[in-house]
């Protein structure tokens, strides 16, 4: 089980969170009409080994979406921040 630091609630069990999405992807603008762009956003994922940025939802806690930096190989977690406070 992972222990994830929530910027609001502190260090909490993984079971309080839901994994959301790859945080390195940027959702296309609403005005985007190119199906290729949307296809890549929705379906294409890298599967990196090592440090990676992920969105997690503290769904059983403060309900904030947080950005977690995690090593996909060792599960080491380097830190987290509120997504809405991260520069876009």
């Amino acid at each position, binding site marked *: *089980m*992972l*222990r994830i630091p929530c910027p609001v609630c502190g260090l909490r*069990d993984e079971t309080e969170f*839901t994994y*959301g*999405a790859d945080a390195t992807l*940027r*959702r296309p603008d*609403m*005005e*985007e*009409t*190119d*199906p290729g762009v*949307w*296809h890549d*956003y*929705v*379906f294409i994922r890298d599967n990196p080994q090592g440090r990676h940025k992920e*969105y997690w*939802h503290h*769904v059983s806690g403060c*309900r*904030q*979406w947080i950005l977690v930096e995690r090593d996909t190989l060792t*599960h080491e*977690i380097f830190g987290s921040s*509120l*997504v*809405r406070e991260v520069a*876009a």
Partner: protein
Amino acid sequence: MTARRLLGGGRIDRSRQITVQFDGRSFLAHPGDTLASALLAGGQKILGRSFKYHRPRGLVAAGVEETNALVHLRDGERHEPNAQATMVEAFDGLRSTPQNAWPSLQFDFGAINGLLSRFFGAGFYYKTFIGPFSGTKFWMFCEGFIRQAAGMGRATTLADPDQYEKINAFCDVLIVGAGPAGIAAALAAGRKGDNVILVEQDRDLGGSLLSEPVGSPSDGWLAQARAELDDLPNIRVLTRTTAFGAYDCEVFGLVERVQDHVLAPERGKPRQRYWVVRTSRAVLATGAIERPMVFAGNDMPGVMLTSAVRSYLNRYAVLAGERIVVATNNDSAYTAAVELAKSGAKVTICDIRKEIPAQLGANAKSAGIDLRPAHAVLKVTGCKGVKAAYLVPVSSQGKATGGSVRVACDIVAMSGGWAPTLHLWSQRFGKPIYSEGLDTFLPLAEKGAFTCVGSLVGSASLRDALQQGHKAGGGTGKEPALFGHADFWGRNLLPVTVVTKADGGTPGKAFVDFQHDVKLADIDQAYREGYVSIEHLKRYTTSGMAADQGKTSNLNALARMAELRGLAIPNVGTTTFRPPYTPVTIGAIVAHDHGLHLRPTRLSTIHDWHTENGAEMMDAGLWLRPWYYPENGESITEAYVREAIHVREHVGIVDVSTLGKIAVQGPDAAEFLNRVYVNGFKTLPVGRLRYGIMLREDGFVFDDGATARIGEYDYFMSTTTANAAKVLARAEYLLQTAWRDLKVHVTSVTDQWAAIAVAGPKSRRVLTDVTSADLSREVLPNNHFTYVTIGDVPCRLHRMSFSGELAYEIYIPAKSGRKVWEALIAAGPPHNLKPYGLEAMGALRIEKGHIAGSEIEGRTTMKDLGLEGFASSKKPFVGSVLRKRPVLEDPKRPSLVGLEIIGNQGATAGSLLFAMNAPAKGHGEGWVSSTTYSPALKKNIALALLSRGPERFGETIQVVDFVGNQTLHAKVVSHHFFDPEGHRQNG
């Protein structure tokens, strides 16, 4: 074997005598005994029969590594299989029976398998049932027979009467293993104020020190240490507790056997307790397990690990035999040999090494031991126990170099070196590191938040182990008391454990894995057949599987494969350890989370009225909802048909409090809704509500529901019951990540509002009665809402219909839900108002062709569901681009239709659809999604998704339920079965 209890010594309470039973016999024991030590003292040689060959087996070990002595414990509902006799504390009245033996332990018919062993070698299961017999009845016949013959204990089918509990804990340091190193670590950490949890699987603290003779210098240290551990309030000591799993982020799983050592748990106490411990750092002091030697007949009852023979002698005061041959390749066996000789046994040591440290040789000689360097046990003979060992001179590779000498004996004690108990470390970090000198795998002493100490890292002496523990605990300055000798670890080890004839063969079966009956020859065979990877070897031969997970066998199997491949051991690799270290009962992990405690139950605030008035309830996700309200013993069908007719003719009320409700608030709320719904929301005026559809990013339908505009910046969104949480999470995701510029808050208000739907031609009259408001069509048309008071409860009244009748939804502050419901019931009689349940609601919506969860099931698009018209072409919305993917525009996609079933039988949801002239094979042209008897149409109808559906109105098709073996015929029609123009709901 003539084992006996010595008159003095041992760490048992001789002042009390207890009785344990095994195989119908009674054995006298003392508190402090294990079942194993009691049986050994009582002369019980055979404790079980082996897995495949049903060979008689006796004790090998004295601890957690025991691989043979698996027994059934207790009877009836507390019956428990695969208990290690070495780990079961003796208590008065303990009943145990052998397993895997028929008709008896002494005479087992299954032993015939031993004669057929050439057919039961490695890969037996795989080979026998491929080719002509694969998948045949013959295969199944044989499988049943084999499963009967093979295997371990039998589980009970009775419900477990005991309680188990789960507990969470946090600490600064978790120390696993309370041997000398672990205790030293705990004391050091405790003294400096750390919050410490010290875990010990044994009943007593002390680890290897408990196997030192009573009166050893270590006893004083141990007594002092125990007292200090008791005194330090920041140390929690958990005995009878096994740390079975080390997980990411320093989370550990422990199981505490709270009441396993008594006949039945005391009232109010759990049988076992499952701990989840989160720690900042961990000190592993888990010790090491001795390696067996591999020679012919090494599984004979009476062939034991030297460390076990020593434990039985010193801890339990049981001398395992009178004439003992010690077979070793290292120094660690000598202390035991000398102690055994001093206790009266006639001891012979055969040591594979030619050169033996002078001091050890002298010690042995002065104890009267017959010491034979460069000798090994080639073979053991006997029938149901060791009778003799055949000693041969051997080369430094373990091959016989001369003729054998028969030495009569009743115990052969093996010491092939040591294997650290590195399971937890490996679970966490993967592959351990091979140590040439110790001929074994070791963990890294420091890695991440883990520190390994003591025998686990091959500490050279007890002094070193204590020092390592002290340092790992954070101790500085004052060192722990230093004392004593230590030759516990296999120093000066010659890395040879396999003893063969000069030609490399063994004169009889030589076992590597006792528990799974894997012979040296099986490893050789796996090698010949190409299963040379250590992971393949494990699966092909099953070596290292089963309850003991190769605690004694892994290294020997590995060493043999390395030898066959001509590689060094580290190049062959080792298997990865996974939790659990020892078997954990499901009961402990489940604890209280079963039955009604498995998950929360959500109840509407009107719930009690439903149950008080005879409603049958049904599960809907976490919710309990009224299913139907039977009158005069009606069946479910009779009840829902009556309720549905009643709604169409009079008026009914249904509790819809479970609908998801989300407050969407903020200056950009309209823009937000406009993006998440396919239809336009910017123009929705205050006081109005609108049905909306949401898509997923990939263009499939996600959810639907109505949203009301309460105020300028204040919207009230409803979602389906099932998707409430998902819609909220999705809204939060979009607002907090991609749409951070939108000033909108979304808040779940599901629990804050009760909701009641009032449906039927008389609904307006009922509501007018209870509200005294003007609810005429002109004042409150469809898709409008207003504020009313029912009794003294202020409510919001939405006019909208799911049933197709003139209908309203009342939103009520949750605490007043029942009050309003009862007000409606009270006002009901003049209008013939009745409650209706989920089943009738379903029938009504299917008659109307309204979609629900069975249609919005993740594979359907708006186009598939005939909802294309809702999509705005003037704005982008979530999913607006990808819903136009060519594959989703394919006209052959199954689309929503209605089915009128021909005949009296209703269709089952999930049935597949086939054209009349097509064979009913494969996936068909679509499927039935929802089905009901329609009281309004007086026929069985269904909603279905059918390829090119809307083009096929009037066609008759086959409706095939392959599971229920039923074929029906149905006419394809529009899914708007009833009142397609909507005259009734707009009335």
